[in-house]
């Protein structure tokens, strides 16, 4: 019973937090950021700081734009990287992989 309450409360809090990010606006913002040179420079710095901590840094040429998006989301979770930095890293990798 106690767990049922805890789980329900967590779910409600989760949905509350999630509501704003459900809008497509966020994706459009991310797309706009992808072509912004300031964002790319910020991403380059964050990439060199964050992405070689646990393993050797993986070169941008390894993955396509779409794959980097997924892989960096994976690493954002594994490496507890704040999402704004992860978005900048994606912008940098997508700008540097061809």
């Amino acid at each position, binding site marked *: 019973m106690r767990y049922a309450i805890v789980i329900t409360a967590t779910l409600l809090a989760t949905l509350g937090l999630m509501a704003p990010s459900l809008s497509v606006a966020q994706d459009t913002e991310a797309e706009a950021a992808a072509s912004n040179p300031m964002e790319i420079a910020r991403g380059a710095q964050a990439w060199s700081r964050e992405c070689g901590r646990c393993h*050797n840094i993986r070169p941008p040429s390894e993955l396509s734009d779409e794959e980097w*998006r*997924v892989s960096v989301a994976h690493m954002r979770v594994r490496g*507890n990287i704040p999402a704004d930095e992860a978005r900048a890293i994606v912008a940098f990798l997508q700008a540097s992989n061809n």
Partner: protein
Amino acid sequence: MSSSKLKIGVVSAMALAVSLSWYLPAYAEGSDAVLERMEQLEAELQALREQVNQNAETAEDAQQTANNVDADVNGGDTTWHIAGYAHAGAIVSDGDTEDSFLFGGFNPAFHFQYRDLVMFEGEVEITQTDNETNVELENAQINLLLHDNVTIAAGKFYSPVGQFQERLHPAWINRLPDAPAGFGHGGIQPLTDVGVMARGGARISNDMRVNYSVAVGNGPRLGHGGVELEGFASDDNGNKSVSGRLGFFPFPELEVGGSFMTAELIGPEDHETESLTDIDFDLWGADFAYVRGPWRFRGEYLTAEATGFPAEEDDHGPEAAFIRAAAEGDDDHGEEASLAENTEWTAWYVELAFRMSGLTEHSFVRNFEPVVRYGEYEVTGDHEAEEQSEDRFNVGLNYWFSPSIVLKGSVEWRDFPSDEIEDETRTLFQLAYGF
């Protein structure tokens, strides 16, 4: 051609046709007939205009529908990626281990992402023993990317305790062919758990950052050789494990962390009360990682205890063996039995690796990486578990073909404090590929 250009084109062609047809027959017929003809033509023109407008609208609709379909099908909302790693090796030993080639394993991993909202990661480990292929689920977690600093994960996840398991265990990441003593399978570092986890990170200044992970899960159980720190599909005692880690970066190259886990296990039957005992399992640890240029220096310390076992008159006597066998559910009194007594574990290691690219630009030499690691694993309390105690020293040399393809060689000295186990020196080779 855009629909508005089309419209203009059609309308001007019509106008031209109308004007021509108006002037030419006018010479031949009377003015009434001309007027009538004009009205007729105007009506026809009007009808055509409407038709053109309608077609343009249909074209716009079709364009819109095509755009929507494109967004749905072509990477609009869901993107995915297949990754993973594989490794193979060989072992040469002067001790009980037979010299052998090893097929380490193949770990395919799948990643799917829905917008910037949901990310799924799942990995299986496929390994081979003498007569069968084993497939084990490593992790399968759905991450809700709720907020820039909060992710909620649900499912089976790598334990956030310490750094080796969550961050370093894949063969293409680990600097040596095996895990430090007391880490990895059969060690004291929790491997996985099934439950929910909240995690994230936040920057507190340009250089400083914090990390956190907190998990609630089904937790470990007593099993073969001690405590099985893996994610079970259900909870045997309804008592959840709570674990987590807090990490801090005083400057970007250094991370220090502290971890904990607390859980309750079902212990053996207490002869006096004739009921199963509740065993408390508590663990804490500390770790650091310093990565700068060609240097990788890291270490961690973990200590755990299981308390609450029923007291026995003679701790190591036949009675203890009986309890152990009963807890194990077999009457074979096998060597790999469960715990019977209060037990304490301590495991730690430090590891230093240096990539030669820090010294030379030479295209061959720069890919070498010498590495040393020393660690100790100490188990006290349960007589049989104590035999797992080991001091392990490794010296290795790696060659990196690419950032995730490596050939490793290492000499490993294993020193077992127990009189019953012979010390061993072995040489390990491993080829690992992360993709």
